[in-house]
Structures are given as C-alpha cells and as structure tokens.
C-alpha cells in the first residue's frame, strides 16, 4: 500500500503507467459514451411531460456530475500537495482545473439549451444554476491564481489552499443559494434511493456518466503527461524518452 503511494509520487513511474492505461481509458470512455448517448438520444422512451427535449439530459447530467466531482478530486489532491508535498498532486490539480472549468461551462450551456423549451427562458436565477455558476467562478479563480504566480511550487501550494477554502465553502454556498431560490428539478441520481425514472432512461444515463468519467481519466492523463514532460524536461529519463522517440 505505502509502496504504491510512494511510487505514485514519482512522475516517471506515473508517466509509464499512464501511457499503458490511456488506450483502455479512451476505449472504455468512447464505447460507454457512444452507447449511452446513442441509446439515450435515439432509443430511450419519450418523457410524457417534456417530450423529446428532455434528451439533452444524457449530455447535461454527465457534464454536471463531472464538473462537481472534479472539484472534489482537486480538493483531495490539494490535501496531498499540502501534507505530503507530492509532485504528482500538483500536476493533477494544475492539469484538471481547466477541464473542470470546461465541464462546468458545458453543463451550464446544455442547461440553458434545455431550459429554453422547458422553462421558456435561457437562464433563471435558480439555486442549482447559480451554484454551478459560482463553481465556474471558483475554477476560474484557481486557474487565474495558478497563472499569476511564477514559481511553480508556490503556485501549486497557493492553489491548494484556495481549492481547500473553496471546498469548505461549496456546501455553504450550495445551501444558502438553495434556501435563496429553488426552481430546478431535484437530482436525478441519489446514491441512497432508487431512481424515479424507468430503467430505459436511467441505464443509458448511467452509461454516459461512466463514459464521461473514463474520458475525463484519459484527458487528465494526456494533460498530466504534458505537464510532467514540461516540468521534468531537464531530467535524464525525459531526454532518453525524447531521443528514443526521434530514433
């Protein structure tokens, strides 16, 4: 266990592992996402109230899921950065923050597209929309702070502090905004309850959520590998790697 933990701290080791896992992640992500989206868009039954317009749920919910869980993952990595000073945790936070930002934006965008036919408006100042918008600001802040600090180590630790402060605040923000205004339908999935929609609807949804997670794993690996190469460009293993690539 601990040996694994220590190995994980080594960028070189991670580089090798990531290279080996990436094709599998990509394949799993592509298959699951295609299955989920095609099933959801073409074969799942119509919603009796919302008609076909509800089908954007198969894109909207996965992106919203990812948007939130990426921030939680960043918070765990931030703890690792501050406590164990593990290089790889910095690399993770730095690499996935823009991905989180984009998923948050996508969920807001698909939400707006969904809101137009259902609520008759692109945007309402409703609790869940607003808290997603605030999440977008939090991602933006973390990225801006990272870019503003030149020294790599200080940037990583400052961002880690900011992400932790943010993650403490997220439940507070969520509850206060919820108390402030509520219009959004309640969550589709809850871990503790059976979903309220029929299986033909939630199975494809689950598939696309899982698919997007795999795709996120692949994206994170790509970005982390790039970041590692940039940071370790002076080390011997990177040089050997580049030489081997060139032949």
């Amino acid at each position, binding site marked *: 266990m601990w040996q694994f933990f220590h190995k994980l701290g080594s960028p070189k080791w991670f580089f090798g592992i990531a290279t080996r896992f990436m094709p599998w992640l990509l394949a799993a992500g592509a298959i699951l996402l295609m299955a989920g989206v095609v099933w959801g868009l073409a074969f799942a039954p119509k919603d009796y109230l919302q008609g076909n317009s509800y089908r954007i749920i198969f894109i909207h919910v996965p992106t919203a899921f990812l948007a939130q869980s990426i921030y939680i993952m960043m918070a765990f990595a931030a703890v690792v950065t501050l406590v164990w000073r593990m290089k790889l945790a910095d690399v993770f936070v730095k690499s996935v923050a823009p991905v989180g930002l984009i998923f948050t934006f996508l969920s807001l965008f698909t939400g707006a597209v969904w809101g137009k036919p259902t609520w008759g408006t692109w945007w309402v100042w409703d609790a869940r929309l607003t808290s997603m918008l605030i999440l977008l600001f939090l991602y933006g802040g973390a990225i801006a702070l990272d870019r503003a600090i030149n020294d790599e180590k200080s940037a990583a630790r400052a961002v880690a*502090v900011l992400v932790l402060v943010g993650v*403490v605040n997220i439940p507070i923000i969520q509850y*206060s905004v919820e108390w402030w205004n509520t219009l959004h339908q309640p969550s589709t999935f809850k871990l503790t309850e059976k979903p309220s929609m029929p299986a033909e609807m939630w199975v494809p949804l689950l598939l696309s959520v899982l698919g997007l997670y795999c795709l996120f794993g692949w994206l994170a690996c790509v970005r982390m590998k790039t970041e590692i190469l940039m940071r370790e460009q002076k080390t011997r293993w990177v040089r050997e790697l580049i030489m081997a690539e060139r032949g």
Partner: protein
Amino acid sequence: MNADARPSVKPVSSAVGPLGAMGAVFARDVRVAFRQRQDLLNPLLFFIMVVTLFPLGVSPEVAFLKQSGAGILWVAALLSVLLSLDHLFRHDFDDGTLEQLVLQPQPLFLLILAKTAAHWVLTGLPLVLLAPVLGVMVHLDGNSIAILCLTLLIGTPVLSMIGAIGAALTLGLRSAGVLLSLLIIPLYIPVLIFGTGTVAAAAEGAPVAGYLALMGAFLVLAVTLAPFASAAALRISLSNS
C-alpha cells in the same frame, strides 16, 4: 558609569504570551492606520459613492429604493471591504514587518486574527456606523435600518476574515487587486444572501432570529477557520518572494 545605569533590556518576545502579542499587533495596526487617515476614509467614500450610483443609474423612485436599499447597501459594503483588503498585508510585506511577524514564537494564525480584527475595526465598523445615514437616503424604515446594521455588524467581520485569505494568497503578485476580487467574491455570496435575506424577512414581519443565528454561525466558522488558511497562504507567499 557602571553597568547598572544602562536601561534594562526589554524581555525577549517569547516571554510575551499569545494574547499579549495579539494585543500588540492590534494596537500597532490601529496606530499605523491613524497616521495615514486618508486611507481610512477612502473605503467609506467609496461606499457612499457606490450607493449613490444606484438611484442615479437605476431609479430614484421611493418604491424601488425601499425594496432594494438593503441589497444596495450590502453590495456596496462588500465592495468597499474588498477594495480595502489590498492594504491589509501590503505595507507590512513591503517593509519586511510581515517576515518578522512570521518569525515570532507565537502562533501565526493568532497574530493574523489580531491583524484582521484591526482591519475590521478600521474599515468594517465605520461602514456599519455609516449605514444608518445611507439607509435613510434609500428610504428604508427604522426597523429595517436597525436590522440592516445588525447584519452588517455580524457580516462585515466575516468579509474581513475570508478576505484576509485572498489578500495573503495574492500578496506580491502583479495586478493583485483584480485577482483578489476574483478569488474572494464567490466566497462572499453566502454572507450577502443571508445579510439581505434577513432585512427582507424583517420587512415582511417574519422573525429574524434564525437568520441572525445562521449569520452568527458564519462568523464563528470564519473566525475559527479562516486565520489558519490565511497563515498558510501567508507562509507560501513569503517563501515565494
């Protein structure tokens, strides 16, 4: 002339207890601030000007101002606290005082708590005292003004505490002011919601004790947790420079 005639050396700082050190930091910050009085006045002027913009920009009608007055005052107060945060550590950072502070044997978070408390007394408290005047100008009734001042009294220390984290994180960076706002505004949202919500509830005649209790909870959370984050951020910023 013998050795006894020399003035006695003050005890080394480790002999000063944490409370003594906090008091010293607090007193020093207040004294330094009063030597540059204009800096104290600026956030207040800003506060008044932002409030003035709303009747000019939106509508001077009594009905509108009555309804949104509390929100306007809260937003203006939030912005002026934000504006003043840049000064919280900046001067001490520039002249090296901050490094001395970090080197003290007393825990850094306590010293930061004292510094932030001084910041609140110098910017937040004057805003609270000025709020009734502006409340009258936006046609709030007496009861609403009283509740508004109470929420500002509980809420502005939270703004200072959270803001200190941002100020510590952006210390010594280019364009720190804008960055500070980007980092901190999302974290201010719950305070704003409950601050204005309390006044709205009071205007409808609903009981406000629950809202005030929640704001009190924010204050307790901010006072107990934020100084640790600020201290960590400060150490990072200092190691960076």
